[in-house]
Each structure stands twice: as structure tokens, then as C-alpha cells.
């Protein structure tokens, strides 16, 4: 490891709504060592160079999902990305793509929060269960079905990677769909019928054109593209099977 201090140029997309008409790039000279993340670079700027810079962060361990941004044009968590990988080039850091910028690197995530709520991201049991009945039992095979999709940390990198979401933000999007899939696959859950109307809808899975970049950038290997595309099949089956076996309430 190189322990010497070098200086990298970080070019940050700034936006201060009270004084800027639109975002602009501002460069900072940031001394760094090989063990410094992009997040630490931003913290250096805020502490030493320009206290007005705004960005979200929390755990620095790629667990909380707060610090997603475009790093060198690619959606990533700035806490798990190292400055050394970009030196000696200018490192461009921008707010996550496809979301409105609230200020500097902070995005407005209201749209995702509403979507997250709309998919009922919790276990909906078949019938209320008394404490005396004990815990739910689940086999390792049942867990394996959904475990990967339960790793989502809501960091929104997949939305920043999804051009279809960028072009039409009504699309429910990869992250929320991965969570729909996660709960639908859970043996303890019976809420699939409540979630699927959204999957079939205009805002649902068929906005996806299988670009696949969402799964490439996912820091937790959730593979949201897989969840979306499996549900295209589910949605198509639902559409065609209703003619064969009509069910109550079919639309």
C-alpha cells in the first residue's frame, strides 16, 4: 500500500437552491492516502475547504445505504469507493442520477419512499397469529428463495442505474420490485394478492426493458433485474390464465 499523501482533484456537482439557477461543477484539491474513501474525501472538503458542501452519509460501512452518488459517472456508495482508484484523473462526483437534487449531493427521495410504502414491504400473514402459537418456522430452502432480495438497503443506486426510471419516474423501479418479490416469496407471507395489482399496472414491471444495469451496480448483489423480470412472467401468466381459470375480482 502506498502510504504517502497525494492530491486528487475532486469535481463536485454543486447546487444551492437559494442562489444557483442550476447545478455547476466546483473543483477541490484533496490530499489523500490509499486507505481513503470518496466519503472521506468529501468529509475533508467539508471540514477543511468548504463547509457549505452538503451530502448524506452515516455508517461508512456500506450497510446504511445513505451515501449513494454518481462517482465517475457510475452509481456507487461513496463509503466503499476509494480515491486511489481515480487518481491521477479528476474525480467527478454528482448527486444520484434520475432524482431531483435537493442540494449539492443530496437528492429528493420522496418518490421512492412513497413507492416503498405502496408495495407493503412487510409480512402480511394469512391470519393473525397469537404469541402463544410461537414463532413462524421456515426451512433453509424456504429462506433461500427470498434471502438475496432481502439484502436491499434502499440505497437507490439501482434507480440511478435505470434509464427507464429516469425517463418515466412513474415506473415502480427495480428496488421496490425486488422488495415486492422478497415478500411475495416469503413462506410466512400471504400478501401477494395485495401487491400484484401494482406489478401488473401501468407503473409496473413492463416499464423494464432488461437493461440490467441495476443489478450491476447493486452493492448487495440483490439482482433487482431478476426480481423485475420474473414478475413479468408472473404478470403475463396472471393476464392469460384469467381466461382459463377466472377468479373473483379479476380485472
Amino acid at each position: 500500500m502506498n502510504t504517502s499523501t497525494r492530491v486528487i482533484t475532486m469535481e463536485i456537482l454543486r447546487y444551492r437552491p437559494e442562489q444557483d439557477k442550476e447545478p455547476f461543477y466546483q473543483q477541490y484539491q484533496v490530499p489523500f492516502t490509499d486507505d481513503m474513501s470518496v466519503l472521506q474525501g468529501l468529509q475533508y472538503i467539508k471540514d477543511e475547504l468548504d463547509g457549505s458542501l452538503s451530502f448524506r452519509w452515516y455508517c461508512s460501512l456500506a450497510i446504511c445505504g445513505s451515501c449513494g452518488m454518481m462517482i465517475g459517472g457510475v452509481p456507487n456508495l461513496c463509503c466503499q469507493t476509494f480515491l486511489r482508484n481515480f487518481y491521477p484523473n479528476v474525480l467527478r462526483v454528482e448527486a444520484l442520477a434520475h432524482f431531483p437534487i435537493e442540494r449539492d449531493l443530496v437528492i429528493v427521495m420522496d418518490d421512492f419512499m412513497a413507492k416503498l410504502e405502496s408495495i407493503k414491504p412487510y409480512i402480511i400473514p394469512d391470519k393473525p397469529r397469537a404469541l402463544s402459537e410461537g414463532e413462524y418456522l421456515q426451512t433453509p430452502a424456504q429462506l433461500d428463495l427470498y434471502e438475496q432480495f432481502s439484502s436491499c438497503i434502499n440505497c437507490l443506486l439501482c434507480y440511478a442505474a435505470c434509464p427507464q426510471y429516469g425517463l418515466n419516474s412513474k415506473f415502480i423501479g427495480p428496488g421496490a420490485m425486488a422488495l415486492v418479490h422478497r415478500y411475495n416469496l416469503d413462506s410466512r407471507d400471504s400478501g401477494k394478492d395485495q401487491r400484484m395489482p401494482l406489478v401488473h399496472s401501468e407503473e409496473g414491471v413492463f416499464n423494464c426493458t432488461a437493461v440490467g444495469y441495476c443489478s450491476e451496480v447493486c452493492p448487495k448483489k440483490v439482482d433487482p433485474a431478476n426480481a423485475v423480470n420474473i414478475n413479468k412472467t408472473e404478470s403475463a401468466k396472471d393476464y392469460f390464465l384469467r381466461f382459463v381459470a377466472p377468479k373473483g375480482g379479476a380485472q
Partner: protein
Amino acid sequence: MSARRPYLRPMDGWWRKNPFFVEYMVHEGTALFVALYALILLVSVTLLANGEAAWNRWLAFLISPLCIVIHVVLLMAFLYHTWTWFNIMPRTLPPILVKGERVSAATITRTGLAVTAVASLIVFAIAWRIAS
């Protein structure tokens, strides 16, 4: 009054900004070549139904240098489309279990490509045999 003024960036030229998106647009673009070949097949079948003279005129057109160049271009586009299609295929499938183990993405892609290659060779062999 709120000082909030969220700024939404335009999407102009989005696919040129990332090599992944450029590749995506190219592989989606090759679908047009697949559609073009489907049209050629459709025309062939229609002309075959129109009798021997029409069919022979079509055959003569098919072996013209221009047509052969078009077919070589179509073949290249097909190969690229096939390659990228099978690469994305594992992302579209539910887990496939063999002896309790998940089949890996790489195995799904390789199997798809192998089946395509074998099927193509069989069709080619049949066509070759009929032609000779």
C-alpha cells in the same frame, strides 16, 4: 415560503454517457436486424406459394452479391444479438434447481449458447443435404 427548489436534470443523450448503456442500445438495435431477417423469410414463404417462376426469380436475387453482403451483415448482427441475449437470460429466469443446487448464471448462458449452436448446425446440415 419554502426555499426548496429541487432540480431535475435532463435525460438528453443518456445512453451515450455510460458504456453499459451504449452496449445496451447496440444489442437492442440488433433486434431490428432480426426483424429484417424475419421479413426476408416471410417474403420467401410468400413467393414460394406463388409458384416456381416467382421462387426462382427470388433465388436468383438471393445469390446476388448485394444480397450476400446483406446476409453476412445480418449474420454478424444475429451473432451479437444471440450472445448478449443469452448473457442477460439468467437475469430473467427464476432459480433453476438441479439436485438441490442453483444452476449458476454462467451455466445458463453457456447452455443457451450451446443449444443454439447445436440447433443451428442441425438446420444447416439439413439445408445442406437438401441443397446438394
